[in-house]
């Protein structure tokens, strides 16, 4: 079976862009990705598009050209972009197509996402009583994790500090000013133990990836960046997810299962490599603690080891596993439809050696991305140069 290659990447800067719709930010990214691939829109045989709050992705054919292509819209919570990519690579793997597009964009109002109970199969009282809030879940989840595994609040602060420091060198990032650890720790609490610098914000942005069969990639003459594995998985019994009026009591024998653990294990199995073979990783960091928990859930360290990893700088650019090299969601914000694809965009930049001030040294050959969404969906990619 042919490997699927990424031959073109494009991004509309994340953050806030007044006067430009989410869809047009997606179109901007597509045009940039086409130019990067050396392809024209009529060459594109199919597209998968993800957007949560900025309209139907397929309507961008009006801007790009009415070529009649297959264009399928994807909605999968925060994993929408990852799901679009998972679908797009399968279309090429199947042998049906040689060249296609995965695109994601979004444009959210300011403030926390406004979720309604009925969208999550929950009773109305749950929202009326004030539980329909993602930050509550994030706070309660990390509070338990810190208690069980000896993680300090300072480690949470270090994650945010690293995010803003890395983003200084990422032109597509939103918050590109370094923030001191002291400022992060002393900022107002949002949901304990998280201060305002430890949460990402809903934002805007667009990302496009052009995917090709290996044969087509060679024709286009681009550096061969292979997708060795793409998995999208949903939660197992007993997982601790957002918007949970109750959680199952877990046994003591094994860690609590999660969609991420399944997606990661399956991706490593498909790629035929292990976590120790990965040079850099983009891990879902909606909040600072998520990056820490996702280091363990994706298999990069054991629960509790993050405390030492952060103190010793193992996840810095230049550390043994660079994590969130463009500042992640903490510095880029989270336009839901585009967020998972941004991670893959950043990995391609790094594998090509185009990271500039944030380039991971040592000529990295493998990169990993992980996106997580409500209520318990995860998508993982493993890429290889």
């Amino acid at each position, binding site marked *: 079976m042919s490997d699927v290659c990424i031959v073109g990447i494009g991004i509309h800067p994340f953050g806030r862009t007044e006067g430009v719709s989410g869809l047009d930010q997606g179109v901007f990214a597509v045009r940039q990705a086409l130019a990067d691939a050396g392809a024209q829109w009529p060459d594109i045989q199919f597209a998968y598009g993800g957007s949560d709050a900025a309209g139907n992705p397929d309507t961008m054919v009006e801007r790009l050209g009415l070529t009649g292509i297959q264009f399928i819209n994807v909605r999968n919570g925060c994993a929408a972009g990852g799901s679009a990519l998972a679908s797009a690579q399968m279309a090429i793997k199947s042998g049906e197509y040689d060249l296609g597009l995965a695109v994601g964009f979004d444009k959210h109002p300011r*403030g*926390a996402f*406004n*979720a*309604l*109970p009925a969208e999550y199969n929950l*009773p*109305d*009282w*749950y*929202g*009326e*009583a*004030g*539980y*329909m*809030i993602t*930050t*509550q879940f*994030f*706070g*309660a*989840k990390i*509070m*338990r994790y810190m*208690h069980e595994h000896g993680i300090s609040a300072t480690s949470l602060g270090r994650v945010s500090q690293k995010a803003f420091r890395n983003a200084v060198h990422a032109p597509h990032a939103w918050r590109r000013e370094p923030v001191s650890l002291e400022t992060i720790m002393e900022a*107002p*609490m*949002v*949901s*304990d*133990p998280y201060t305002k610098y430890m949460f990402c914000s809903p934002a805007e942005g667009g990302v496009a990836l052009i995917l090709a069969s290996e044969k087509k990639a060679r024709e286009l003459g681009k550096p061969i960046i292979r997708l060795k594995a793409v998995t999208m998985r949903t939660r197992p*019994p007993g997982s601790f997810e957002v918007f*949970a*009026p*109750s*959680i*199952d*009591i877990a046994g003591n024998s094994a860690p609590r299962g999660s969609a991420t653990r399944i997606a990661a294990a399956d991706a490593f199995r498909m790629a035929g490599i292990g976590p120790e073979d990965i040079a850099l990783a983009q891990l879902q960091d909606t909040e600072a603690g998520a990056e820490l928990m996702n280091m363990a859930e994706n298999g990069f360290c054991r629960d509790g080891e993050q405390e030492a990893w952060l103190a010793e700088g193992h996840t810095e650019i230049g550390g043994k596993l660079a994590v969130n090299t463009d500042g992640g969601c903490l510095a880029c914000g989270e336009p839901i439809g585009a967020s998972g694809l941004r991670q893959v965009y950043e990995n391609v930049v790094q594998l090509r050696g185009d990271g500039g001030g944030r380039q991971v040294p040592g000529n990295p050959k493998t990169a990993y991305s992980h996106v997580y969404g409500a209520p318990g969906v995860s998508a993982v990619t493993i890429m290889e140069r």
Partner: protein
Amino acid sequence: MSVIAEGLFTNEHPPRLIGGRNRVSGRIVFPCPPGTDYEPWPLQRTGRLWSYTIQRYRPKSPPYAGPDAFAPWAVAYVKLPGETIVEARLTNVAFDRISIGMALELTQIPLDPDAAQPVLIHAFQPVSALS
């Protein structure tokens, strides 16, 4: 005074929360899901604090139906041994006295303490607290 929804509490004094027990697997959840897979299962009134956070800003309305005036509140996950871990407000305890593992019991608190006709929601409080 009325409760925020039907089917959350038993009619006992003091009331218990009504969970649901899966008729096949025995899994216990809260609240009791609609349909026939789960049978109503009154949950024990006492448990221990499993995790918590403090809600520091007023949630958006809709869906939040509480008062416009806002003061931070504690949100708990309470482990009811052998049953499930229930999400609930945590009341009658100062934020800096909250600690994971503390013994808690079920109570009811008004969603809006100043309302003429308060609506009750479920909450837990330290076992020693006066109800």
